[in-house]
């Protein structure tokens, strides 16, 4: 399978009064054609900044891509002009946001805004555009499409609005869809429907999806591959089964343990102790070391690289997994006091 998007050494820094904050710090990943890649992590770990960097929409000032490349179909997006980026946005790469309630302009009808999305990239008549809009609304499961084009955002429910946003994102047949927590603001039943819809469109149109979420249930449901981010870095990367069956990084293990199990009776839920450190506050060593139960001296002194482990594409940023044999050895030494 060929990669449609290659991110190499991407660094996005926010220059604020309190100093420079590296929200995304040297990340590498790729997105294959037609796959659904999940990016998980807690709030503030750099998931959203990663997606905004790809779209070229990092708020500037204070943010800026300071290093690295984002290659989309042999074109480096970090070097593309604003005009070129506008052509790409919506047409080649589109994006869905977290908050469906506020993602639509309250003053214009649904139809008006969707037609606009078509006409930005294609020279078609209003009639033709409207026709396509109605068709697309039906594709995303809105059967009242003909009436809905004349309605205002406040007349629709959150789930319906998110479907409208999906319609808007897919209407120009993009090659990549970046979905930034598309279901976080919705209730669970609607969540499932929206995810199903996205998966269906991914399958039918072969659109690669980058799904940003902090919900591991969502990842298990739809993703083929998972990237775990922590404090601006990728700390583990593997296909979805590997992540859930044999996670390696202590953070990933902790995340998976925090998911409550319906079959288990527990008075208190598991949680990883401590809080996510502020990006940029840790200068030396592993960023998770302060919260890691298996941390040893080396973790605080050196920054662990991303180990390419077993050759199956499972990568992990932890000294415990420098090599599989060594990892066991190290684990033994720290568990015995």
């Amino acid at each position, binding site marked *: 399978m060929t990669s449609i998007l290659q991110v190499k050494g991407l660094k996005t820094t926010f220059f604020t009064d309190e100093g420079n904050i590296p929200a995304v710090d040297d990340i590498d990943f790729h997105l294959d054609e037609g796959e659904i890649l999940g990016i998980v992590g807690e709030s503030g770990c750099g998931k959203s900044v990663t997606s905004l960097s790809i779209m070229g929409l990092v708020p500037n000032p204070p943010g800026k891509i300071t290093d690295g490349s984002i290659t989309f179909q042999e074109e480096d997006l970090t070097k593309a002009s604003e005009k070129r980026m506008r052509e790409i*946005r919506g047409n080649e790469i*589109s994006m869905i*946001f977290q908050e469906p309630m506020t993602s*639509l302009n309250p003053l214009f009808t649904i139809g008006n805004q969707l037609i606009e999305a078509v006409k930005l990239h294609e020279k078609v008549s209003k009639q033709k555009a409207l026709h396509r809009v109605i068709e697309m609304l039906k594709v995303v*499961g809105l059967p*009242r499409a003909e009436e809905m084009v004349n309605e205002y955002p406040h*007349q629709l*429910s959150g789930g319906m609005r998110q479907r409208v946003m999906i319609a808007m994102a897919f209407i120009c047949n993009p090659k990549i869809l970046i979905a930034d927590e598309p279901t976080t603001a919705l209730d669970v039943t609607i969540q499932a429907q929206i995810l199903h819809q996205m998966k269906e469109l991914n399958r039918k149109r072969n659109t690669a999806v980058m799904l940003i979420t902090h919900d591991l249930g969502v990842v298990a449901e739809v993703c083929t591959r998972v990237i775990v981010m922590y404090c601006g870095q990728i700390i583990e990367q593997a296909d979805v089964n590997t992540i859930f069956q044999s996670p390696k990084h202590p953070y990933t293990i902790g995340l998976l343990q925090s998911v409550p199990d319906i079959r288990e009776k527990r008075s208190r839920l598991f949680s990883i102790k401590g809080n996510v450190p502020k990006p940029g506050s840790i200068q030396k060593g592993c960023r998770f070391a302060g919260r890691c139960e298996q941390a040893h001296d080396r973790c605080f002194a050196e920054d662990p690289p991303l180990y390419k482990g077993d050759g199956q594409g499972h990568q992990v940023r932890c000294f415990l997994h420098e090599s599989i044999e060594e990892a066991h050895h190290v684990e033994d030494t720290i568990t015995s006091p």
Partner: protein
Amino acid sequence: MSQVAENQSPLQPSSQHDEVVSPWLDAWRKFRKNKLALFGAITVIFFIILGILSPWIAPQGINDQNMANTLQAPSSSHLLGTDDFGRDVLSRIIHGARISLWVGFLSVVGSIVMGCLLGILAGYYGRWVDTIISRLFDIMLAFPSILLAITIVAVLGPSLQNALIAIAIINVPNFGRLIRSKVLSVKQEEYIMAAKAIGMKDSRLLMKHILPNSISPIIVQGTLSIGTAIIEAAALGFLGLGAQPPQPEWGQMLAESKAYITTAPWTMIFPGLAIMLTVLGFNLMGDGLRDALDPKMKH
């Protein structure tokens, strides 16, 4: 297939198939319920009609002098009396409506256009653009507005047109600051990011998303400002810096009649009342518009 979906879809709001209400129509409905605002609007409309139809409804010409009939008290032949040249006060007030409303309306439109342009640029682009424009507004607001207007008229020369320009200029910072602050909040909205994410140009984004969503306080402020602009025009007229005699501008009429305040008070009372009623009308209408357009102001 679509029927199945319609029956099963939990997204369907039940029985919500009534007419589509646009945000503007909704505002109009709220406005209509407000009696005081409606009274204000009717007053304003009354004066507008008076102004438009003035050449036909005024009983006499504005400059028809009658030296035998100077300073007559109100009577059946001169409903509001006559002034020191024997001119019919009612006719002059009716013609004056056209001038005052025209000055009020045009100067406010001028202020809005300039203010919106500067305010949107300042709010949207921020940084040095914002610094320059905002400081400019601060400097202008540091002057008493009437003093600034007098200065501008003094430079341009006294005439109705220059008074209009001066009033437009002194009100620019009010609109500019208002729209700047609104743009600052609107540009954080997610639909702005969503519009950028479908590849919209800055210019289109400003016109289609930012401006329409920032405009409602401007409409309110604009209506209220027409009242103030009329007063300012009258003040400049009173000082001899606006409309020149024999133009029947209300402030100018006040100035001309100030010598007769004890002997023929109607020459002063009626133009003053006309100013007051018009301004009151605009203020009531403006308040009503604010309540109708601002969802947070529900009582």
